[in-house]
């Protein structure tokens, strides 16, 4: 700080320092925000604009059509509504067992094990596999003719199942891909949160005669609430934008099975955009998907948020 009576005349260097302190922070964060404005905010607003127009790649001049694109998707194009059902179904089918397994695994990893880092790496290993690779491998595991699952079924005397054909069976196969890849990752996140729970809470509970099971439900789970909310939110966004697993399960196509029985909303969007070049309708699909994600995230928040209340 310069003193008052020296104020009128700052040296060049002092001025430079002041400007540096005042303006350099903006320079440091500006690359992020310039790119964010161009790659995040602008596209978001532009999607809204495009969704209100009849607009095709290489087609005639765009034309304002109000909510026609939305209406088309919601009332005429059956695949869109079904895609929302499929996406929600697979989301529930994948997320519930995944979170339960991850909690159990995290609880096990939180015990005093030898070589804890080795266990963590083993549990996390699936994450090295790209989603495409997971799709390649699991499509074969669930394959109709030579698949391992059907092989096992035959061995115990059951008929092989065409997993791709049915709605629920295809959802099961796709959920297994999601769960296999992400369960360990979520277990580590839960483990990190469990390690911050003070251990004397458990010691006190043990003295009071609480069983490990009671301790898990009454100490661990309530303490994990913030991280559960976070995980379920991230899973909602990831699950509702599911794309690669079902695409690989339908042999790299976007139709999601013969009747679209496992076509997700992201697949419908990309199909309209890439194969039909229809900007207006795909933009409307993008906004509808965004709204659905918002609803799902809000519902999940309300569900998880009740945890503390019980008992």
């Amino acid at each position, binding site marked *: 700080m310069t003193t008052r009576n020296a104020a009128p005349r700052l040296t060049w260097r002092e001025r430079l320092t002041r400007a540096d302190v005042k303006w350099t922070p903006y320079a440091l964060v500006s690359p992020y925000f310039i790119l964010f404005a161009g790659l995040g905010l602008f596209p978001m607003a532009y999607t809204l604009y495009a969704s209100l127009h009849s607009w095709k790649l290489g087609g005639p001049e765009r034309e304002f059509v109000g909510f026609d694109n939305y209406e088309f998707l919601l009332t005429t194009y059956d695949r869109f509504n079904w895609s929302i059902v499929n996406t929600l179904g697979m989301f529930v089918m994948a997320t519930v067992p995944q979170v339960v397994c991850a909690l159990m695994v995290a609880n096990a990893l939180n015990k005093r094990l030898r070589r804890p880092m080795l266990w963590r790496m083993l549990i996390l290993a699936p994450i090295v596999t790209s989603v495409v690779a997971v799709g390649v491998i699991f499509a074969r595991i669930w394959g109709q003719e030579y698949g391992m699952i059907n092989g096992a079924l035959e061995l115990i005397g059951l008929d092989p199942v065409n997993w791709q054909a049915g709605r629920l069976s295809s959802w099961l196969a796709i959920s297994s891909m999601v769960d296999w890849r992400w369960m360990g990752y979520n277990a580590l996140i839960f483990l*990190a949160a469990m390690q911050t729970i003070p251990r004397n809470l458990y010691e006190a509970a043990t003295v009071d005669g609480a069983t490990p099971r009671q301790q898990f439900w009454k100490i661990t789970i309530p303490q994990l609430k913030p991280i559960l909310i976070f995980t379920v939110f991230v899973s909602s966004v990831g699950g509702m934008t599911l794309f690669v697993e079902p695409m690989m399960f339908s042999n790299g196509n976007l139709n999601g099975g013969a009747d679209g029985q496992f076509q997700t909303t992201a697949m419908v969007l990309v199909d309209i955009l890439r194969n039909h070049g229809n900007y207006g309708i795909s933009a409307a699909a993008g906004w509808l998907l965004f709204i659905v994600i918002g609803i799902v995230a809000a519902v999940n928040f309300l569900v998880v948020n009740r945890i503390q209340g019980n008992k």
Partner: protein
Amino acid sequence: MSTATAPRPTVPAAEPAPPKRPRKKTGDRIEPAGVFAPTAMTRIGLVLVALLSIFPLYWMIIIASRTSSDASGFPPPLLPGGNLGEHIREALTSPDANLLLGLQNSLIITGTVTVSVVLLSTLGGFAFAKLRFRGSKILMGTVLFSMMVPLQQLGIVPMYMIMVELEWIDTLQAAILPFLINGFGIFLMRQYVEQSVPDEIIEAARIDGASTFGIWWRIVLPALRPAMVVLGLLTFMLNWNEFLWPFMVLSEENPTIQLAIRQISTATWATDLSMVFTGTLISIIPIAILFVVFGRQIVQGIMEGSGK
């Protein structure tokens, strides 16, 4: 926070004993310790989960090293065959598959994105953690918002339109551009700067006449080296595995490795499972190497990145 325990990424040393209870371990016995003693059920469960985690990857290697006919039937073969080297050579040189080009493109895209995300995140993280400037709260809120909202899915239509307009379709810059920034990176770096760079050091440097940029370069960056390794690893893994956007803007003639895998597994060699798995194995190898060498950092990065 244990950032200080990861000084050398190249040393995957044995896990140090938990500091709280420096009791001696006697062979295979684990002494009773209340609820934190693992039961037999815990061990069996963990072994099962670990086997399930590894098995599909192991199976892929088995089939890649044998012949396609070994892939059918149950139980699957459990020992690798001798064809792996030959298959890999065949896969990499096959004119039907763009595996080498795919690897090269993926390296360029992922490398550029990783460098950009790590550098921009240290800049932003430093500014948000240690510098006072008007609007910093709102701007940080925007960063958090950008982490929550699936902008990629929402923005995919106009981003694609822009790439068409720019005539960037089928160019690598189209695949790179949307990933150059990452809100999570800024968030992570802000946490690390707050923990690892004391205010006093920055004050002292200012008194010595260091500029803001100089402080970033000489004080913040060296202190952030472990965090940069972690963020770089996570960013590299994430972008190596990216599929949807490259699928939109690149073609099968100029693919990323993931697009090349889709191509061979669904069209080119679809019936030759052994070759499909060989190609898939090749696509995983770079990440698998990172995971084996830096596994500890990756595990710590995931666990610390979530710690709120």
